[in-house]
């Protein structure tokens, strides 16, 4: 039996310990905010925060995070008002929106690590997250806005 804490709630799993965290979250725990984009840690759509680090849930097994604290987009802020989320709305970042949960989690993790990133640091830190609609300019601006006070 593997135990994990997701958004503050204890969850357990007694199936395949190699099951990627992504599919546990989406299909078993019903937390569909975390998205499947590539399955190979190439696009960042599945980014969640494990303890204080951004992690790609698609290549992280449920066993790898046993006993750890996982935060998904649903648990980032009780009202959805994390500074990154607010900045995202002020800048009207999303087009289709599918990659945005991963982008937001990556940005939140970046700001935990580096509260005042430069534009270059933002571009570098966010480059693991693909947006096919091409919202990069707005993502960069939203992260900057979140870091300077929404």
């Amino acid at each position, binding site marked *: 039996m593997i135990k994990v804490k997701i958004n503050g709630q204890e969850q357990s799993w007694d199936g395949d310990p190699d099951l990627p965290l992504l599919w546990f979250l989406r*299909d078993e725990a*019903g937390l569909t905010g975390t998205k499947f984009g590539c399955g190979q840690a190439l696009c960042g759509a599945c980014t969640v925060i494990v303890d204080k680090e951004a992690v790609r849930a698609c290549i992280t097994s449920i066993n790898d995070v046993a006993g750890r604290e996982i935060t998904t987009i649903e648990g980032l802020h009780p009202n959805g008002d994390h500074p990154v989320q607010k900045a995202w709305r002020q800048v009207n970042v999303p087009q289709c929106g599918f990659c945005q949960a991963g982008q937001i989690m990556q940005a939140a993790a970046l700001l935990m690590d580096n509260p005042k990133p430069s534009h270059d640091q933002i571009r570098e830190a966010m480059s693991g997250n693909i947006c096919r609609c091409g919202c*990069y300019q*707005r993502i960069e601006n939203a992260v900057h806005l979140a870091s300077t006070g929404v």
Partner: protein
Amino acid sequence: MNFIDNPEKLRGFEKNVRVEKVSRRSILKGLGITGGFVLAAPVMSRQAFAYETGADKMPHGVVVDPRVFVAVAPDGTVTILAHRAEMGTGVRTSLPLIVAEEMEADWSRVKVQQAHGDEVKFGNQDTDGSRSTRHYLIPMRQIGASARTMLEQAAAKRWGVPATEVKAVNHEVVHSATSRKLGFGELAADAAKESVPSIEGLKLKDPKDFRYLGKGQISIVDLHDITTGKARYGADVRLPGMKYAVIARPPVTGGKLVSFDPDAALKVPGVEKVMQVRGWPWPSKFQPLGGVAVIARNTGAAIKGRDALKLTWDDGANGKYDSVAYRKELEEASRKPGLVVRQEGDADAALKGADKIVVGEYYLPHLAHVSMEPPVAVADVKGDKAEIWAPVQSPGGTREDVAKTLGIPEGNVTVNVTLLGGGFGRKSKCDFALEAALLSKELGAPVKVQWTREDDVRHDFLHTVSVERIEAGLDKSGKVIAWRHRSVAPSIASTFAAGAKHEAPFELGMGLVDMPFEIANISCENPEAAAFTRIGWFRSVSNIPRAFAVQSMVGEIAHATGRDQKETLLALIGTPRIVKPAVKDMWNYGEPFDSYPIDTARLRKVVELVAEKGEWGRQVPKGHGLGIAVHRSFVSYIATIVEVAVDDKGKLTVPRVDTAIDCGTYVNPERIASQIEGAAIMGLSLAKYGEITFKDGKVQQKNFDDFQVLRMDESPLVTNVYIVPPGPDTPPSGAGEPGVPPFAPALMNAIFAATGKRIRNLPLGKQLEA
């Protein structure tokens, strides 16, 4: 217009408008909607148009009926149906916003509800071709005006005053003579009893009184849900008892399953079943490819199970497809005469007599869509009834195809349209929904079919592959007197029927035969090309290779004559005029020429605007270069300037992009800007990396590692967007697709300016490093 340079301007943008499920009860109490949306609403004639569009010629045309699209609840909540699919363009917000504007509804009290697939009821729902705003601006205004008129009539009756004395203002109807007011909610029941006014008699608002349209102050309705993980895409649908499936499909288009061994797959924890999926012979429009499905309790188990399958395939006739060899065939075909599809003057003679001939042969490979959400669908088939939940651009078409595939009446199929995690044309093809329907029928349970990224890259309906060869003949003064353009590319028609060898009118009309330059001798030719894989629409379609070739050639002519790119471009466009190409069956994006001519004044205008705002001719540092390109597509006009920097190792960066678009009358300039910003990213993506190759009939790429798309660290540092203010009667035109085509040629013209290297073969790859 640049919304991003001044983020403080965007403060307060966030509106607390949310999309919620509306209960049937509140709808029933609403504006004349009876029987839960099932009513025999008369489709009214629409003669009151200020201009004609091709909307009526689309399958099922247009329905203008407030009882179908609008409901007012007693509490005043106005529900407006969005009948087109949301894939990131903002259409799910902008079409209902038009209705709200015209009916004087307060947007903060509006809820948007997604319509299911039913084109008889809602009119055409194909969300493609950059058509939604241009086909629906006037119908949505008429729907809103009808609803407003019914509310006003109800209020006038209540007060016993002539309807001419009352006026709807911001969610109320007002009788100013007596200072009486009634809220929309208070009038809902009575308004529902009013007859629907004739369209001819409707009074539309004066645009100067618009509160929302053209302002760009309203954020998309899904914004809050997207940022909190609540927005529901196709993959997010969960039903009780639902099974999870992935499918192993034939690696070669048209291939067949010979045998499979399910034993190892069945041993994977969580795998419940392995079963064959019916496939159709190629080509068969959007029918499934067939293969073997692994059914499991979660997607992870299904994928692991599929990896364990032992499969034997018969690759069939396309097993020889090799993109390197095929490219040579296309190039050779482009060097010989082909079917003449436009002829003016005598291009052969003029080329023979030319002082100088500039030749360019341009190659653009297959491209995959790779929307961030791979194809996915949920189906629940019970007996002769089917319910589908899927991210489809064509809900009506999906309904038809599901009915046909299952052999049940269309009326028994419900297609629920989720948000689309990107579409770009891929999700106009509903094969993934058909797979889910077939599996659910056989399993007797709801099932979700999830495509992996590898499935998406390997089994896409790809953008075609093409060689575009242009020969421009110049006289002694440097004036272009002859133009021969041969376009060789497999047609999308090949996906619908075997044997298509020439491009269809809708493909020829995308930048080949509609070429707007003022040249005396023009020949456009279309040599034969066969398809060996599934070809489909990709955002901007044939405009991508055409604009790349034509606008690169402008740069080549500028160089050959020692003139400025922009001046060369304007000289080629020539005098302000309406271009009427000598072409049989000329296709104009489905639009009548009277409303949507090829207008070189507008083409010149976007060039001049982008040159002014984008500071064409500015001094740039060493190693930098500027390039310009213009293109008309989806009946819009768009010009782009790209600045590049190439370092001594050949590393490319893009410091700045400027784009000017004239898309006529617009609804939401903020979303137009976002489309154009995104188009620059997609344009740079395809120019730098975009290439799907084939060997032994199989796609050689699989995921974002070998089919790369642009990432943030290489994206343009700034993209500025300028929107041409529309004239009073300028019809709306496309905004979703036009941004892509001019990007690659502007980029290559800029690279030439910076380095002297002319890139004619896409993608750029490592060509600058040599």
